[in-house]
């Protein structure tokens, strides 16, 4: 009887120790590295980086940001429409694209206008103080000094899901377009796509 109880006790202790050993402390990971989670149902950090990286490389390599009219290239980050059923934070993509364009030295990026966000509000607000005697009017930004964009970067993301038995597959395609605002002609386009698949357990 005692031996039986001892067996149960040691078995329970072993189970508790094993379960405790499975715990993982919070730790830092490389957001685009192999430790990062890969899910079928969403766009993961590594994929945002992939899309931004491939698009930025293609745009910088293309030479599409060069202008023949002598004007300095200025890019407005437009809307990237989300045609998926997911809530996607497009800032994860557009912020990287802004940085890549600026770092390339091929064009400037405007914060004065664009889709969404609050980047452009300060440019307009600061001109609202032009009659405020609190401010030295010589230091107040004047009207007619903001440089207008001559390129617009916009796009869309599309998702398609497929199921076959216990296997689920998600396909995502990002499509980006750079439009010359003087002519309305698309001067650069890029698709970045990826697909992910997972099979649920039978039980």
């Amino acid at each position: 009887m005692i031996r039986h109880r001892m067996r149960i006790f040691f078995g329970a202790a072993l189970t508790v120790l094993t379960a405790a050993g499975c715990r993982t402390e919070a730790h830092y990971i490389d957001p685009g590295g192999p430790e990062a989670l890969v899910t079928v149902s969403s766009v993961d950090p590594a994929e945002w980086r992939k899309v931004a990286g491939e698009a930025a490389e293609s745009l910088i390599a293309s030479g599409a940001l060069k202008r023949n009219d002598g004007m300095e290239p200025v890019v407005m980050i437009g809307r990237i429409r989300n045609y998926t059923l997911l809530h996607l934070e497009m800032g994860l993509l557009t912020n990287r694209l802004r940085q890549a364009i600026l770092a390339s030295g091929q064009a400037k990026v405007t914060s004065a206008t664009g889709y969404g966000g609050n980047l452009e509000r300060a440019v307009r607000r600061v001109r609202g103080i032009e009659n405020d005697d609190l401010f030295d009017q010589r230091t107040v930004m004047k009207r007619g000094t903001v440089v207008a964009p001559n390129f617009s970067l916009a796009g869309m993301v599309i998702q398609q899901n497929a199921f076959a038995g216990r296997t689920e597959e998600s396909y995502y395609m990002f499509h980006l377009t750079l439009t010359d605002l003087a002519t309305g002609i698309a001067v650069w386009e890029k698709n970045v796509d990826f697909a992910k698949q997972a099979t649920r357990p039978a039980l």
Partner: protein
Amino acid sequence: MKRQGLFAAAAVLAALGLAGCQDTINTVENRDLAMTPSAVDTRAFNTDSFCRDRLALVSTRSTVTPGGVMMVQAQIRSERYGFWSELWSGMTGTNPYHVLYRFDWMDENGMAVSTAANAWQTAIFAPGETKFLQGVAPNSRCRDFILSVREDPSAK
């Protein structure tokens, strides 16, 4: 004696069956090449002997793009074809072979330049497949690069 014969026949049948399951890439190219690529003399620092043996660096080429930045393409071929290699990769769940790669770029002062693309990218190699891992410099001042390749453990 009869049993040994049966074993041998079964082994041959299994080998033929497995060999028939090979899903390798076969290629044809024009013999007289018209291209005149600008080859890059490279030196490699390998720490993963498995990755080194499974992927062969065929060539590395560079050019300057219309945007005035340097572009590099590393032609890499999967060496995981042949009966034993296919058998092993099938058993270990590494067929096709998933790798991650990343380009790091240096400016004229040797300083690493941060880029939007400075992240691990995925590449999936079927046995015998050749792929071109491509990197574009973030600006026209970058002339030197490091290509890092590692196995993707999350894909096993």
